[in-house]
């Protein structure tokens, strides 16, 4: 199974992106990736992400190769009940939490991690989407510190936590890498890893079992993620893990679902 662990549908408010289901399916065909975990991009900016999540779930209906990671805003008082509601949906395999976008401390995620674990859902915690140097003048979205996400995974061992959009330096820091390697419930999406030998280096730092193929399409060119994995020239078994095997564990997926 090959799976994109970070794809989105919908609009980005500051520039035009494709974001259509047709475009997503075309990108997946081009990359020969059969499955994707999809979140609604507008929900990162909505105070109440529910309408964007509803739209996402409508778009994904009848498409069993696409799983959903709706966005939940923990600043809303009903977030806990909303997680319970989302957990009933057969295509929901994770919840995407974006503390930087919605303006709450990552430390606040702890209780939600326990709830997600109870519902057998993974938590995807978004560090960023765009290079902070290029944020629009009217809207700076602070990155989430990866240390906080590692600490959350350490504090809730029953939870399955995916770090979305870490940078190369954040992963390679030796102290952090050691903590990540020690965790069995933490994974990293590769969408924002970059630099010569980025995937080889990340593999050396945290282990291949922690890495999830992820494109950040339509915000990024999907091809970039695939080329990063290809150029690493990992053993076939390791490539299979990065391209989908690890995601199957992180999101408790089966290709025939």
């Amino acid at each position: 199974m090959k799976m994109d662990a970070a794809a989105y549908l919908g609009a980005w408010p500051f520039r035009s992106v494709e974001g259509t289901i047709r475009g997503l399916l075309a990108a997946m065909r081009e990359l020969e990736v059969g499955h994707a975990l999809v979140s609604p991009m507008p929900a990162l900016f909505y105070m109440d992400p529910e309408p964007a999540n509803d739209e996402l779930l409508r778009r994904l209906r009848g498409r069993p190769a696409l799983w959903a990671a709706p966005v939940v805003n923990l600043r809303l008082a009903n977030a806990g009940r909303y997680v319970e509601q989302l957990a009933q949906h057969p295509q929901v395999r994770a919840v995407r939490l974006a503390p930087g976008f919605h303006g709450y401390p990552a430390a606040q995620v702890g209780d939600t991690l326990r709830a997600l674990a109870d519902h057998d859902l993974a938590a995807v915690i978004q560090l960023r989407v765009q290079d902070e140097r290029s944020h629009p003048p009217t809207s700076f979205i602070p990155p989430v510190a990866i240390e906080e996400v590692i600490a959350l995974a350490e504090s809730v061992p029953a939870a399955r936590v995916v770090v979305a959009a870490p940078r190369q330096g954040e992963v390679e820091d030796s102290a952090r890498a050691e903590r990540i390697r020690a965790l069995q419930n933490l994974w990293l999406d590769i969408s924002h890893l970059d630099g010569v030998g980025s995937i080889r280096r990340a593999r050396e730092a945290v282990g291949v079992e922690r890495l999830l193929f992820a494109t950040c399409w339509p915000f990024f060119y999907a091809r970039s993620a695939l080329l990063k994995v290809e150029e690493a020239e990992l053993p076939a078994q390791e490539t299979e893990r990065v391209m989908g095997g690890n995601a199957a564990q992180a999101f408790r997926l089966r290709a025939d679902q």
Partner: protein
Amino acid sequence: MRERHRAGRRSSGGRSSLIIDFHVHPGFSASREGQRDQLERILRDARYHHVDRVCISALADLSQSPTPEQVRQSNDSALDLMSNYPEEVIGLCYVNPLYPDEALQEIDRCLEAGMAGIKLLIACKASDERVDPIAARAAELRLPILQHAWYKRDGQSENESTPADVAALAARHPKTMIVMAHLTGGGERGLADIAPYENVSVDTSGSEPEAGITEMAVRKLGAHRIVFGTDAPGRGYGAALGKVLGARLSPREKALILGQNAARLLSGRLEP
């Protein structure tokens, strides 16, 4: 993994496609050995993607304003690396415009030793008149200048050029071939700044592989004014090539960006 996602000869239906990476910095390491190791790692990935040539510039210690001696040492290390990989590595001469006489002498020295262009970083803004002698010399020698530029929301260095600075330089020196670095760093504003100046191209390096930026550059400038660049080793080949190979462009446009435009800029100094 299948071959067809890769760039170059094996990925385009058997057609030969020249690929030149216009923007590589082999290390800020103090030692020559460290720089050689880093360049070898860069070339490993470049070869995997069938990149034919890489243009390197050694940038001393990223100092705001390196001394002529520091500049000379940096270029010596680049010349050393060129000699180790004569088939693959093209050198760009790094100079500091704040030392105009020494900069011109250094350009002559490096050109004599086989370099094929000039690199300007952040010693002063491109719009500064102290860049003029270098720009004039580049036009005279038909050398391209790779000029760093970025529009940063925060953290722009005091003397770091924006694309508007590059446009000002281009307006004063219409016969000088300028490659503005960092397409994604300049973004939409950067493209608007340089669009009127046909003597300015942009390299595809900078930041992350934001979808649509390469197509936008083609719409605003034309494919003939875009050159492929990675900014390796800080950025890698996979992400950088995805910006071109993943873009909705014609095979001809991609071929121009990947190598043909750079070959034109380096014409006369690039062995066939």
